[in-house]
């Protein structure tokens, strides 16, 4: 599903953020990526959405080398991959409904389907009564659940979550985690980057630890947050 082969990322002049990464993630896995900030977790995720390109090495998603994707085809890649961020990245000028609908509109989805699907997914993440609210009228937890709804509307095969609980309190963090686990149960591969040890330890799945741009530990089962 996802494959990194000898991936290096160097920010000029010589700031090595990823150093010789070799990693394979199989379909349906739930992978936690842990490490201190600056360890290279976010950069690793950005390579998957082509926000960044590797300095050397290959990144493959579903067998396709991302270096071979033309700039104009990048949107198609991003529609296959759902993303959730620490800062939510919601469109402030659009309502909850419009935020989710926008992700569907960009792939030219039939308007009737949008009208039907958006309220459904908002109900799944518990925002049925906030359909017409703007992001600034939502709490942090609600914003993140809205972002997850937007990420899931395409039924992506991969969901990338970069510190999704970084701005949330304990209760909201666990709500978000429960949603991610549910999404994973339905077949989506989930990659979660986090430095919240308690959260990661409750998951008990594969944990990959990173330090200074390198993978230092890869526990495939019952992983714990260790650096």
């Amino acid at each position, binding site marked *: 599903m996802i494959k990194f082969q000898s991936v290096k990322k160097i920010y000029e002049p010589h700031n090595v953020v990823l150093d010789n990464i070799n990693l394979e993630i199989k379909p349906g896995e739930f992978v936690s990526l842990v490490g201190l900030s600056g360890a290279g977790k976010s950069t690793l995720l950005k390579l998957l959405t082509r926000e960044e390109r590797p300095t050397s090495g290959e990144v493959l998603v579903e067998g396709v080398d991302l270096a071979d994707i033309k700039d104009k085809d990048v*949107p198609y*890649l*991003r529609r296959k991959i759902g993303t959730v961020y620490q800062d939510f990245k919601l469109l402030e*000028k659009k309502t909850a409904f419009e935020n989710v609908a*926008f992700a569907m509109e960009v*792939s030219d989805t039939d*308007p009737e389907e949008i009208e039907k699907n958006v309220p459904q997914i908002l109900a799944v993440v518990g925002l049925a009564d906030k359909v017409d609210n703007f992001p600034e009228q939502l709490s942090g937890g609600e914003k993140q659940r809205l972002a997850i709804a*937007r990420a899931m509307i395409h039924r992506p095969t991969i969901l990338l979550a970069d510190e999704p609980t970084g701005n949330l309190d304990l209760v909201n963090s666990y709500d978000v985690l429960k949603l991610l686990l549910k999404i994973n149960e339905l077949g989506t591969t989930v990659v979660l980057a986090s430095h919240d040890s308690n959260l990661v330890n409750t998951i008990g799945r594969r944990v990959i630890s990173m330090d200074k741009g390198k993978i230092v530990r890869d526990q495939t089962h019952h992983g714990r947050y260790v650096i």
Partner: protein
Amino acid sequence: MTNFKKIIRSAWTNFRRNGYLSFGATGIMALTLILFLGLLSLQFLTSQVVASIQGKIDVSAYFTADATEEQIFQVKSDLESLPDISNITYTSRDQALADFKASHAQDQLIQDSLSQLDTNPLAASLNIKAKDPSQYASIAQFLENDKFRSVIDKIDFYENASVIGRIQNISNGIRDWGLAATFVLAIIAVLVTFNTVRLTIFNQKQEIEIMRLVGASNWHIRGPYLVEGGFYGLFAAAVALGVFYPISYFASGKISSFAPEINLFSYFVHGIAQVFLLIIVLGIFLGVISSFIAIRKHLRI
């Protein structure tokens, strides 16, 4: 079609929700367009002033007393074959005397002296107006070589040559500097508009990047912003026209009090369809192009 409607609706929603920003951008663009209309007025006024100065230039050929009317008319028709002539008027000796008497009707001394003479002291003349004042030298040259040169007493171009030259320099100067000023101000106006739209887009830079991240193609993002830029232009054009016409009406009254032949307002009323079309198209064009250029930078993610 539904797609286009969707883009328009989305642009309109964005325009409304960005209230202050839209208001500011529209206001700046309206000022720009008013400046353009002002420049149009300036062009019109300078061309009118130049035309009225140039209309005052002419050349006359005076004929000797023994020149026959046939000869004079022959010279006239020769001149008329030239492409640069706009108008030739013939004044006979009797007509010249009558005009002279009429214009000095109040002056008893002149009237008395005229009545003392047995013969008419005045000459028949052709008064020649050229389409372009630079042609007077060649017209004088043409008369110089005419086969009836012998009956032409004098050509007053030579007395007036320096004055004609100076007037021509002045009117060329007004025209050229007017054009240069228009050009410079137009560039400033375009830059100000562009910068304003760029700032409004910059303000929405994060939104654009988010749209890229959820998989929107460039045209999908651009569409509504281009239409929004068009909205700025459209509303700005409406405001500019709404402000400019009353101003030109009042200004017109002031101008005609010292230059009665110039009517600014009627010029703009006469060409109202073209002016509206020009300003609206210009406004929309400026808005859309500025958005297009401004948004490019933020689509690179």
